[in-house]
């Protein structure tokens, strides 16, 4: 019998997926407060998993030239430049003759850039107006600093500055919509509680892509199949660390038993709060959230949507029983309507 929480709520996914005495659930804790944006994770992942190139265009999204998680980028480092305090540091440009921040403007330009990632839908274009709000800083109001050298200092504008970097990855949800909607069983739950596409099975139906509440999984064009982070299932099997976590120079990506990672993360948040970084918060750590908690969760320094993450995702299959009920009702209605139409008075 399926578990009562098979579709929603806290659950240990491996036993639910039929594994008897599985190993502990493994996952990632990505601490963005120590990320240096080096992208070693992106490269190490590509090297291990043989992931193809994902486009050679300058995107103008700070140092992000990958753009998004795609079938050809299973790790993606996001870069956000913000005229805001970093919390722990003194204001970077205090007393400098700067004008107001340009972050919203450059973000707006970055929103429209594209590159052929070799995948579908790959990196979708964004909206400049929406992008302009991403920095969360003051709106751009004019150019008081724009005077030729030597002529006056202008009003001091931006003083605070911070540069957020965050390595995004598949969340390996407890309730993984991609997995549940997969009609071939290609997407499956491993004994480690992770979610993996089986490349010998996937027939590229694309359903998982629409089902993912994080926009992670994506289809490779010349290949037709869906691809995403496997949490290096092959490495896990022989007791190795996933390639990205092994490469990460600053332990921003930590791999381990999920329970232990959650404890570590809570301690880290507490420490950051203590050190004057009240914005530090965890994302995806809570087994009571809309996806039953993520196998890969994060410590963020701003709202999730600033990094391109949904603020409160709920797995679509939570509502599946209700959906089937509605469908059943509609089906009955349809049959009855047909019956009535035919049983009606002959004309």
């Amino acid at each position, binding site marked *: 019998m399926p578990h009562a929480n098979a579709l929603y709520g806290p659950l240990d996914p491996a036993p639910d997926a039929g594994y008897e005495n599985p190993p502990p659930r493994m996952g990632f804790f990505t601490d963005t407060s120590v990320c240096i944006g080096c992208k070693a994770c992106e490269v190490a992942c590509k090297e291990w998993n043989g992931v193809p190139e994902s486009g050679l265009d300058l995107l103008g999204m700070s140092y992000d030239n990958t753009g998004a998680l795609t079938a050809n980028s299973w790790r993606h480092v996001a870069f956000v430049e913000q005229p805001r305090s970093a919390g722990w540091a003194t204001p970077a440009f205090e007393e400098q003759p700067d004008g107001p921040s340009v972050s919203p403007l450059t973000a707006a330009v970055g929103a429209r850039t594209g590159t052929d990632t070799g995948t579908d839908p790959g990196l979708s274009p964004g909206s400049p107006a929406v992008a302009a709000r991403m920095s969360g800083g003051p709106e751009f109001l004019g150019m008081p600093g724009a005077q030729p050298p030597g002529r006056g200092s202008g009003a001091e504008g931006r003083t605070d500055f911070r540069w957020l970097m965050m390595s995004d990855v598949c969340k390996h949800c407890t309730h993984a919509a991609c997995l549940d909607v997969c009609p071939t069983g290609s997407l499956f739950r491993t004994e480690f509680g992770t979610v993996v596409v089986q490349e010998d099975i996937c*027939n590229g139906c694309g359903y998982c892509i629409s089902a993912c509440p994080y926009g992670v999984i994506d289809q490779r064009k010349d*290949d037709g199949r869906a691809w995403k982070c496997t949490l290096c299932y092959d490495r896990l099997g022989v007791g190795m660390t996933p390639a990205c976590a092994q490469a990460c120079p600053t332990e921003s990506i930590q791999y381990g038993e999920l329970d232990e990672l959650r404890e570590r993360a809570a301690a880290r948040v507490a420490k950051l709060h203590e050190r004057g970084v009240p914005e530090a918060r965890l994302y995806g750590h809570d087994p009571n959230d809309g996806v039953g908690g993520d196998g890969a969760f994060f410590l963020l320094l701003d709202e999730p949507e600033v990094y391109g993450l949904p603020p409160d995702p709920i797995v679509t299959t939570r509502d599946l029983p209700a959906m089937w009920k509605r469908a059943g009702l509609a089906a009955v209605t349809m049959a009855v309507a*047909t019956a009535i139409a035919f049983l009606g008075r002959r004309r």
Partner: protein
Amino acid sequence: MTDETPSNEPVGARFREFRAGLDRPDGKRHRRPRGRGGDGGEQLTVPPADFASYYGRPVLKPPVWKYDIAGYLFTGGLAAGSALIGAGAQLTGRPGLRRVGRWTALGGVAASTYLLVHDLGRPARFHHMLRVAKVTSPMSVGTWILAAFGPLAGVAAVAELAPLLPQHGVLGLARRIAPPIGNVAGLAAAATAPALATYTGVLLADTAVPSWHDAYPSLPFVFAGSALAAASGVGLIAAPTAETAPLRRLALAAAAIELGGGHRLERQGLTSEPYTHGRSGRLVKAGRALLAVGAATALVSGRSRVLSAISGAALVASSIATRFGVFEAGRVSARDPKYTVVPQRERLAENRSTTRL
């Protein structure tokens, strides 16, 4: 190239122009995106929402399904509705309508199969769909429904060929036993048909696509109605008018189901926007209008061949418009981060206020 003194325009003018370009709703000042990427101009007609995002890029991946799937929504519905009509005609002794129903059902299901396989990234692996049977996957459920429905509809339709067979010999035997087999198959197909017509509502709703998911209470009814409308429409066009009386009633019922069940599409908050605005909104509206016209015309068409045909065409067109409209609305909602972020933000705010109480 010898004069490099900066132009005489006031300092900062170029930058202000640069900035002004950004604020222009068409955003045309900026270089076109290279490679892939739509024009995205449509979102800009909506005032920018007060929310943050990552470079305005969507949180979700828009569905990769091509128009194959929108087409399938139509052909699958048509096949299901037609199978029901075929069975109704069979039971009520309307051979012409029965034939049309069965053949349309087979045509619909054949087209559906083609479209579904064609949409796959790896069409040669279509049979992997039969590896598992997952109630959590509407596509898996649909596959098994189709797997049941398709052969049955095929047998029912092929049975209609019995009169063409010789009267004697082995084929003569086939000619005699085909009709009863066809009847059994026709009824069996009809039994699975409502599921075929309505599971597609769940297929779309069981995604993270905001406008589809939020519409889960409505979509099965919209699709059920649309399926009946399309099938009625084909029947009205193709069947002898003497036998189409049930279809006129059915068209009316279809309209009632679709409009009654679907009126909530416009009332599900922000994610209704794609059903009412833009190209997808226009398609949905056109579907509604055509449905009303088709149903009304059907009511008054009587035995008029012309009116029946007009009514039928309107009903079929309505179904096509509705399917493509709904399909497109989902894609629009996935492409704009606001449909993902804003409702979730509102939900969080709501939860916070309730927990505070």
